[in-house]
């Protein structure tokens, strides 16, 4: 098989290409990775250039007709703002026909047959798009006040889920563990059961890769995250920050769901108690815990207080994030959680709605970028690309080779240090240092909460909706 076919095979389905092993993916000689990346990049550009309106306009304006190096694609990274460049009033006024029109410039999927005229909210719009066009959006938590909408297709989610599974296994020392791959794990997800946000989809990945069947999945909230509520959460936060809370109106469609929201809230307090009892009953079993840090800390404090520790030694994967329930975590929270559960590490990842990766933290504290994602560092002011060697700090850019219906090139709002030097952990892939921050914070601060805190923001919005 030639390099081009190999490369396309990797880009189209990385989990399959690497035999569902993140260890394999992170141990390819770097020269081979780069050759495949360039070939895959060229294929994506030639196939998408004239089918995505925004890409065509940008490439035309810059006079780019082909890529002869990985750096060339760095000139064609969409600013992260492109996927949230719609007028927000379209969402507030339920103008989903216009939202669909906006989206049509960012995807190859034909949206002309979308039937969205009757949609009375974001949930119903996303559902209608899925049913009538096959496009399946994922959105950000909207912590900056505006939601990013990324036009994926169902295949993209299958890959995301498998990437999650293989990465979780590898970075928890289970890469070659057939049992870990095939047997069901008791899976505690300290968050919502599902939803169309990046955070909401995480429960589904835990289900696919660890629980395997719904009987093994125990979630904190027995509800899906509503995209409308998340949008509301974003608006509340934004309005508070801007002194505009008095002008914030709750749509009739959301008001009509008041009883449903109240029920969700009532169930939470009981749910934590039930999860705790369930955890105790599973001592020594194979257990996966994901979701919000804050809830895990609560469970751990309670357990340690009652004299329970090292509950699942040797059979435990913990990877929680963000979600501090509005309060700061105790300084020794990681230690607390490890002592209670018996986990030897708490999995940590760097990722985002827009890129098909979970860059996982290795034993050296570095986040490794997998071969199907090409990382870039850009000068925040000039946009100049850093060389692909040594170590550089600047705006993070990524080219995600997986998507075949939208453009994978993406310049983030994050400042990272990207390191091309060999990592002592033995992986051949470039890695990102642990200090990551929003560029907007550097410029003078904003009220960004982390994406993983989406569950909290959602819960806070429920609170607003049920008491407003």
């Amino acid at each position: 098989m030639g390099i081009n076919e190999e490369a396309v095979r990797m880009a189209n389905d990385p989990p399959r290409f690497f035999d569902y092993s993140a260890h394999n993916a992170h141990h390819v000689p770097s020269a081979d990775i780069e050759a495949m990346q360039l070939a895959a990049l060229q294929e994506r550009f030639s196939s998408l250039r004239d089918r995505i309106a925004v890409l065509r306009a940008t490439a035309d304006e810059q006079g780019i007709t082909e890529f002869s190096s990985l750096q060339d694609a760095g000139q064609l990274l969409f600013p992260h703002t492109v996927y949230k460049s719609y007028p927000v009033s379209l969402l507030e006024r339920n103008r989903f026909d216009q939202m669909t029109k906006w989206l049509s410039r960012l995807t190859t999927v034909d949206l002309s047959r979308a039937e969205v005229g009757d949609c009375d909210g974001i949930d119903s719009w996303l559902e209608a798009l899925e049913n009538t066009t096959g496009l399946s959006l994922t959105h950000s938590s909207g912590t900056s006040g505006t939601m990013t909408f990324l036009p994926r297709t169902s295949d993209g989610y299958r890959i995301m889920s498998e990437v999650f599974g293989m990465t979780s296994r590898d970075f928890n020392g289970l890469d070659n563990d057939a049992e870990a791959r095939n047997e069901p794990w008791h899976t505690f997800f300290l968050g919502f059961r599902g939803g169309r946000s990046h955070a909401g989809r995480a429960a589904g990945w835990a289900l696919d890769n660890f629980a395997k069947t719904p009987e093994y999945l125990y979630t904190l909230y027995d509800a899906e995250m509503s995209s409308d509520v998340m949008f509301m959460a974003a608006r509340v936060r934004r309005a508070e920050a801007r002194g505009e809370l008095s002008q914030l109106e709750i749509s009739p469609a959301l008001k009509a769901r008041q009883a449903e929201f109240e029920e969700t809230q009532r169930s939470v307090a009981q749910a934590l108690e039930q999860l705790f009892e369930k955890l105790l009953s599973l001592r020594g079993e194979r257990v996966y815990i994901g979701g919000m840090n804050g809830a895990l800390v609560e469970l751990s404090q309670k357990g340690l207080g009652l004299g329970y520790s090292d509950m699942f030694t040797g059979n435990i994967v913990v990877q929680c994030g963000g979600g501090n329930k509005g309060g700061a975590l105790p300084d020794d929270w990681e230690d607390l959680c490890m002592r209670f559960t018996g986990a030897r590490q708490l999995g940590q990842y760097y990722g985002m709605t827009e890129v098909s990766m979970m860059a996982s933290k290795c034993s050296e504290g570095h986040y490794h970028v997998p071969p199907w994602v090409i990382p870039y560092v850009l000068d925040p002011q000039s946009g100049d690309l850093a060389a692909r060697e040594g170590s550089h700090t600047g705006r993070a850019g990524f080219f995600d080779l997986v998507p075949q219906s939208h453009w994978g090139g993406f310049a983030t709002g994050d400042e990272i240090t990207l390191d091309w030097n060999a990592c002592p952990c033995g992986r051949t892939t470039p890695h990102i240092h642990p200090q990551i921050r929003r560029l907007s914070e550097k410029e003078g601060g904003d009220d960004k909460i982390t994406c993983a805190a989406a569950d909290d923001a959602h819960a806070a919005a429920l609170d607003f909706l049920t008491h407003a």
Partner: protein
Amino acid sequence: MGKIVAPAIIRGEIITDNLVSFGGRGGDMEFLSPDPMTIVDRLPLRNPAEMRKLYTLTIDEIIDFLVELGAALDLSRNAHMQEALEHSYAATDLTPSILRWQYSLIQQYFSREMVRGFIDVPIGIPFVEGWQPVTLADGRTASIRAMGARCLHITAGNSPMTALISLARNALTRSDAIIKSPSNDPFTALAVARTMIDMAPDHPLARHFSVAYWKGGSLDFEEKLYQPKNIEKIIAWGGFASVKHVTQYIQPGLELISLDPKRSATIIGRDTFADEATMRDAALRAATDIGASNQTGCSSARVVLVESGTDDEGLARLRKLAAMTYEAMLRLPDNISNKPKTFDPELRSNIDGLRATPDFYEVIGGKDDEGAIIVSKLDDVVDFYPSLSGRVANFVPLDNVSDAFRFVTSYTQTVGIYPEALKLRLRDELPLFGAQRIVTLGYAMTANPALPQDAIEPLRRMVKWIVDEQCPEDTCPPLWRDSLVHA
């Protein structure tokens, strides 16, 4: 080596001991200043009786002093001001020509008539000069006097005028000032204080003007200083986070006068489109409100609401006005506006995002970070409007001028309006939604400190209003009299 020193000046004494390093904004500038913890005990005026000397001066003598000081601050002959200007280039967000121009305005601000207005308009000189009698319906007479207080001024650094306004307000109210300099202007207040020391080191006005730098948020330091025994009032200029931070120290006996973060807007009525000349006039004025001092003021225009209509014809009108405004902005005199010194990279990302969305937005200019006009094609502002800066404005089409009220909140300071007749129609309505200053289009950035600011009168808040009540028993029946007790 060679680091710039910003001393502390406490009651006429220049302090350069225990220097530590502070980073300026953006991390590109460092200066040395005394370790704040080593001066925290000396900063407050421990004995309020020392303020008695301020009352040995008549208001005319205070005005004389300020006028003389204004003349002495002349950039062409004042070495302190020249040095401050030179050092400020690295700290400020302003370009050199604009900063120089702002320094050159100081004398104009300190003309005799201007200075008199600063106190006579908001309070009335008789009330600071002596006791003003009033007779009340219950038979008593009272005398009222506005007296000075011990104030901390947390000044903003977007314009050096902030330091000058604080100085004038302090002197004219016979108050004691501690100026907390901002990191983007650590030098102006110091140069003024040094000039006063040169003029008359023991003058009461020089003795009651102290200047220091500490990093806002230094809890140990602030908890010691921000106490009612040290200061009675905090006048806080600045952004949301810094003002919010200060509120934690507010308690009985320590009052906050908040000149908090504000944004400003522009409303352009439909009569503007009567003819080309009227449009050009409005465009030049709008360009001035957007571009003056490179949009660094809280009164700088950012969102421009235009009663153009939202149909295709309306959008064409809007686009034409926006293009004229962009052209006019590029032609503004170099001392009031030019290519901004820095451009917020996140704002640039946001603008680039809109360029990919031609159905809803058009961006005029901005390719070279020179400033841009974002034209909305729907009747809504861009979601990132609070971060509009670097001469970037958002033109929004409206069918009816009353739709503009949706965008006015308690954060709205100035509203520039065109044409003038429209102002009379809107001035009773806009304040209901939060607007605080309504001004002829083109004059947003030429404020006069004699007038109310942010819908309060800072001077009336800065002074203490003292009453002396005289109650003659015959005209003002006392409580102890039986007949009254049982009445």
